[in-house]
């Protein structure tokens, strides 16, 4: 009798497998995710962990746009529906998420990609599946450079920002440049193009320092910067280490030109985070968004986010989601009443539009430039008010 166990088990397993195989494969991927009433759009990014801001909060912004579009009758009569996937900010999570959205949830397109490494790791899978993708948070250049047929980004990429940081410092007459950076994937995606561009321009950084994302103190870094007599400091830092660095520099009486990037683009919040009065007189930063969360121009979005997510305040993370979702919806509209993947990608490929919250126009060119956001805006403090530099 014992001998027969495996036979029965094999039979059971094969029967189960045959059941799975009986499910027919999808007929047409071109219109996958589109029904008479709705268009399903996927999103992936972390819901938790230290970088959930770039996942969950950005998705909340996307959701706000979809809510607005749907309340106004949808896209050609179809509601846009967001299907969220958690990737844990991990490569295996992102690959699983893309596979799930493409082959299991069968969405029409994907908007998202939060963590640089995770999104980079999912690129081969995205290309293989051919599903249209609009990146809205991950900044690594490699995601869209060289251009991939079905991947566009609405976010400023790391290379654009890094070059802008150096150009800005040079335009201000800075001779001695230094860089202070974190060492995670996010920072490396910026640091590598930064050093490449510096080399191109013949610049040697007089100091090249690290600062941890959780650092509570940056006195050694501040002392080194002061000792080297730097004119401008390129900051590849999140707001916390950034605030700590500026605070500790002011403490020892040094205040060079601080050049931030989009991670520090809520100027009002950053001023509070530094916590020292008049700390930001020499601080400028790049913004991907044209407005700050408190500005009256984005009041409509503030209200809508508050309505959908009562616990949240409008943040720049939401605004990145809002901007990219407006681009996506515009492309869906242009793809016509019977959207297909190719139609959508064609619309993305000739996208040229102004978006509510982005600093510059979104301009794509199929096959040439899939990095559609090339316009960093600069923020600085003038007479106690945050202004956009021209």
């Amino acid at each position, binding site marked *: 009798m014992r001998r027969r166990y495996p036979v029965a088990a094999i039979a059971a*397993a094969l029967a189960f497998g045959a059941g799975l195989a009986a499910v027919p494969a999808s007929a047409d991927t071109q219109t996958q995710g589109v029904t008479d009433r709705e268009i399903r759009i996927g999103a992936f990014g972390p819901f938790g962990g230290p970088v959930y801001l770039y996942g969950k909060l950005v998705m909340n912004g996307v959701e706000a746009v979809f809510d607005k579009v749907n309340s106004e009758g949808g896209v050609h009569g179809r509601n846009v529906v967001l299907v969220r996937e958690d990737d844990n900010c991990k490569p295996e999570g992102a690959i699983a998420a893309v596979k799930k959205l493409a082959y299991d949830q069968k969405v029409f397109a994907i908007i998202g990609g939060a963590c640089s490494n995770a999104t980079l790791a999912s690129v081969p899978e995205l290309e293989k599946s051919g599903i249209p993708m609009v990146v809205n948070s991950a900044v690594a250049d490699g995601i869209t450079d060289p251009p991939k047929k079905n991947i566009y980004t609405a976010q400023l990429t790391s290379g654009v920002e890094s070059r802008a940081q150096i150009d800005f410092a040079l335009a201000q007459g800075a001779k001695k440049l230094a860089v202070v950076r974190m060492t995670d994937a996010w920072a490396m995606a910026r640091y590598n193009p930064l050093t490449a561009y510096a080399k191109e321009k013949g610049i040697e950084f007089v100091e090249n320092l690290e600062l941890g994302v959780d650092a509570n103190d940056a006195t050694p870094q501040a002392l080194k910067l002061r000792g080297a007599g730097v004119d401008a400091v390129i900051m590849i830092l999140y707001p916390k280490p950034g605030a700590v660095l500026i605070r500790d520099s002011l403490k020892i009486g040094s205040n060079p030109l601080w050049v931030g990037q989009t991670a520090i683009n809520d100027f009002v919040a950053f001023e509070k985070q530094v916590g020292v009065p008049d700390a930001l007189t020499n601080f400028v930063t790049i913004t991907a968004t044209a407005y700050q969360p408190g500005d009256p121009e984005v009041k409509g979005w503030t209200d809508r986010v508050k309505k959908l997510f009562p616990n949240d305040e409008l943040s720049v993370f939401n605004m990145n989601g809002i901007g990219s979702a407006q681009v996506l919806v515009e492309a869906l509209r242009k793809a016509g009443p019977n959207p297909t993947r190719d139609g959508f990608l064609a619309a993305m490929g000739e996208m040229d539009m102004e978006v509510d919250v982005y600093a510059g126009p979104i301009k794509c060119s199929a096959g040439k430039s899939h990095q559609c956001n090339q316009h960093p805006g600069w923020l600085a403090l003038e007479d106690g008010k945050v202004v956009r530099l021209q």
Partner: protein
Amino acid sequence: MRVLIGKRAFLFALFVLLFVIPWVANEYQTFVANLILLYVILSLGLNLLIGFAGQLALANAAMYGIGAYGTGLLMTHFGLPYWISAPGGVAIAVISGTLLALPALRLSGIYLALATLAFAQFTFWLMTHWTPVTFGAGGFIPPPIDFSPLPVTQETGIYYLSWAAALLLYVAAKHAMESPVGRAFVAIRDGEVAAQALGIDLLKYKSLAFAMSGFYAGVAGALYSGLLGFVGPESFDLLQMVLHKAAVVLGGMGSVVGSLIGGVLLTVLVEVTKEFKFSIEIAFGGLLIVFVLFQPNGVIVFVRRLLPGWTERLHYVPPDKESEEDLAAAPDPDPDAAPGPEEPTRAAAAGPRGGDPG
């Protein structure tokens, strides 16, 4: 019915099912099935260390990473084929694992846990900072794996390699834990002094336990680098460590077949948690708490209670909850387990063994 739910039949069916999945399931399901195979290997290896040998080390995610990095980097830097790089990566993981046994000879319990945690964080730091070798925090893309002359793609090849590895390593773990090695591990777990008195060489068996778990984690890592075609440090962080712990606790500490079930359940539960858009941190932190508190022997206990033929000889069963008064009043029957005034050996809680509920 009974023939279908026996342990051997179940395992047979599980592996047959995992074997046919790439033919019948969609790409996402196949990918998840491959992750299942990796987590089975990981939880088997970790269980040997914490469940059997009783060494609470928090460096399993780091070993996993070392295996993945070792394999990928050997391919990238030296252009070695996968079938040389993978054993190389595993060897590096085994060496690092064995080195961890050194502090384990002097430390135990909480000290060991935190020393290995520091080691794990240091490894993570090294992955992000040793840029010339590891390519830094941005990770790297190892070259594609060539399975020729076999007519399979990289995905299929890695899948069946994982399948075979999981099967072999399960059988190996099962036999090892039924052998004198397993008994030595359990003796060390239940009391080092007593184990030494029995003539068990602590150096040898502790090193062996760390080396074995390093080997398992290294194999999983080598497969991981092939599965993803991308290696970056963030995959080997604290959350990864919690997932490994959760897999072991979920399945059942000190049960080989429990680890198999734990690895499968954990991976499925991660996907289910994502499906319900729930926080992974809360779900798996909570799962760890609930299981340790209410069912420290894992789901395997339920399985045993319901189904015949699932017993394992060495599975650890702690004593029933002693009431406060009993603890204070009754003289302890077992002098090894009773902490004397000089040595409150709470960790080495020993209890009546072999009282299997199944």
